[in-house]
């Protein structure tokens, strides 16, 4: 039967699915045997992960000296990776919470995997503040617990303590949010599972969900509450991360525009990463009907918008430096662009300002391959943005006598690769063992843009 399509609103989900089809199709990756492609990708990801584990073990055993850091440049790859991953994570929360609040129905196709991405990115991010410590076995000292030392507390004025609370809260809340959304889907899996183990596991983790209307009502309430809480949370998290730098007095770090700049950058990079992942997932798991060109277009537009904010931030930084009349500040920015690390700066500008402009063209927006490449480049650019801010600013600060250069060691590069390995490993496992798309939510919008809902039930 030909689908009746609204003049104004096109359906969010293609293919004229029935509820049952949605269930079947979304659960399909869980039901079938893992494909060779999945195994190959997982092996690659695991290999990267193992490399990272080896590198981190070596570093923990031998000392931070196995990184290329020095007395002047105390942070480089470690915190760059940390901020990068945290930034990646933000798109997930944004998609699930902010778009929810703004009633953007198209989010339902991507929010589950975006939230999962958040969790995995935060895990990757969370590793770095711990392993970057000289004595990570004492990392628990950052937590203000009662102790036999006086008691001696922590310094609540330190942005690192704020970070600890922010990242911790962010992870817990994101996980909660993600898990709450997963409960009805786990119940679906439970009810259609054929294998006993699967049924038992899904049964255990679905908390006894039965689709009761009363529960759905409360569920909707807390989902809204969580979205309302997660939205300021995500802004606060990256604001706090930016305060790591903004509250310091290193030229290039000490800037008031960092919070919005970092949040925009995080959203920008996060959406790029969501795009990267979604385009792969769409292709590999055959979710073309769920993740449509409309989704890609919408995300591309967000990228253009946030990319614009980021470009504005870059310009503002230079203006602030110029206008400040502070010679250290001015030098720092000239040095960024023209100094020995200029190549990093121009990589950043090229990838973050230049490349996204291509998305203005509808033709490119609807070209999956082009969008994929652009999303990858943006990720590269955003990694360099953090590298530029952190490393270049540190390498030439106040006293010329203490200027120093930095270059990464094998261990640092391996650690970065390892974090990608961890991320992809987790994501692949997720794609195999949990529904990538929020089944319940997609069903809720299945009738969106269609005049007649009767067919949906058939």
């Amino acid at each position, binding site marked *: 039967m030909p689908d009746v399509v609204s003049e104004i609103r096109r359906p969010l989900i293609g293919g004229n699915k029935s509820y049952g089809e949605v269930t079947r199709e979304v659960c399909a990756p869980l039901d079938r045997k893992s494909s060779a492609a999945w195994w190959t990708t997982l092996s690659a990801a695991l290999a990267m992960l193992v490399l990272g584990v080896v590198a981190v073990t070596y570093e923990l055993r031998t000392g931070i000296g196995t990184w290329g850091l020095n007395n002047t440049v105390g942070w480089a790859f470690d915190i760059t990776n940390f901020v990068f991953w945290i930034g990646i994570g933000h798109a997930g929360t944004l998609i699930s919470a902010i778009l929810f609040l703004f009633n953007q129905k198209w989010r339902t196709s991507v929010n589950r995997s975006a939230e999962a991405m958040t969790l995995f990115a935060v895990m990757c991010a969370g590793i770095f503040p711990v392993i970057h410590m000289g004595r990570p076995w004492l990392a628990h000292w950052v937590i203000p617990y009662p*102790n*036999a*030392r*006086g*008691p*001696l507390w922590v310094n609540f004025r330190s942005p690192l303590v704020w970070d600890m609370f922010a990242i911790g809260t962010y992870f817990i809340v994101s996980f909660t949010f993600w898990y709450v959304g997963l409960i009805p889907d786990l119940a679906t899996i439970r009810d259609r599972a054929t294998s006993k183990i699967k049924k038992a596991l899904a049964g255990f983790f679905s908390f006894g969900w039965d689709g009761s209307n009363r529960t759905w009502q409360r569920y909707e309430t807390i989902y809204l509450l969580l979205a309302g809480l997660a939205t300021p949370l995500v802004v606060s998290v990256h604001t706090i991360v930016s305060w790591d730098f903004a509250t310091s007095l290193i030229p290039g770090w000490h800037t008031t525009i960092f919070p919005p700049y970092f949040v925009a950058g995080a959203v920008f990079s996060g959406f790029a990463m969501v795009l990267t992942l979604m385009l792969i997932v769409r292709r590999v798991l055959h979710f073309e009907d769920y993740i449509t060109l409309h989704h890609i277009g919408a995300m591309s537009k967000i990228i253009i918008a946030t990319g614009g904010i980021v470009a504005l931030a870059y310009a503002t930084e230079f203006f602030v430096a110029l206008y400040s009349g502070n010679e250290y500040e001015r030098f720092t920015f000239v040095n960024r662009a023209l100094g020995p690390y200029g190549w990093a700066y121009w990589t950043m500008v090229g990838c973050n300002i230049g490349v996204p402009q291509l998305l203005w063209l509808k033709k490119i927006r609807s070209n999956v391959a082009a969008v994929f490449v652009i999303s990858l480049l943006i990720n590269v650019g955003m990694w360099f943005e953090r590298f530029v801010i952190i490393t270049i600013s540190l390498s030439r600060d106040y006293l010329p006598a203490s200027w120093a250069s930095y270059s990464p060691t094998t261990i640092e590069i391996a650690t970065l690769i390892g974090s990608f390995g961890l991320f992809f490993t987790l994501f692949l496992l997720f794609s195999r063992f949990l529904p990538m798309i929020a089944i319940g939510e997609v069903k809720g919008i299945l009738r969106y843009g269609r005049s007649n809902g009767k067919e949906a039930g058939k």
Partner: protein
Amino acid sequence: MNNRVLGIFLGAGLLLCLTIFLTSYANNVRLPGNNEGYEPVQPIAYSHRLHAGELQLACLHCHSDAGRSRNAGIPTMQTCMDCHKFVTAPILDIRAEDRRAAEAKEKPKRIVSAELHKLYAAMGLDDQLRPEPGAVPRAVGWIRVHELPDFVYFNHGAHVSAGAECQTCHGAIETMERVRQVSDLSMGWCVNCHRGSNATGVQGRAVAAPTDCSGCHF
């Protein structure tokens, strides 16, 4: 088996273990790093109870550097010999020997107690306190009881001259046959004493006990 019974059984077992653990080792269990209660066997069974308790020797009589040095110091072997070149055994034993000798109408023999024998041996002396041919005097290697981590700087002199009693930290040493660590020597324990002393003073005098980090850590 009935579920409930099994459950109760398991729970009770756990409780029992805990109770046994807590009661039998309540005084024995220390968290790692805390050496409270450490009471090593010393090479010579020197009795603080006898010397500091019964004979009322001041702590500084032997640990004479405690008032002027970081370390209270282990008394030198010569310090022991200062007295024990005359006193070779407990006074009651000597008196008993004197009585025996008086009864037997002979010269009283020199009695050397087992522990003092070890002292003389270390000094390279025989029991008549004559140098043993070929013996090299070697200081006794006592076992250290109270030891702070290296990252803590503790100065005995500062505390003694501020009027702190030795017993405040070391406990009633004058009642101990064998020295035992009675305080946990934790940072909180130190700091709280400092705070208290600053508030109340020590022996009626105001003190300025540091509560800054660099009072102890550098």
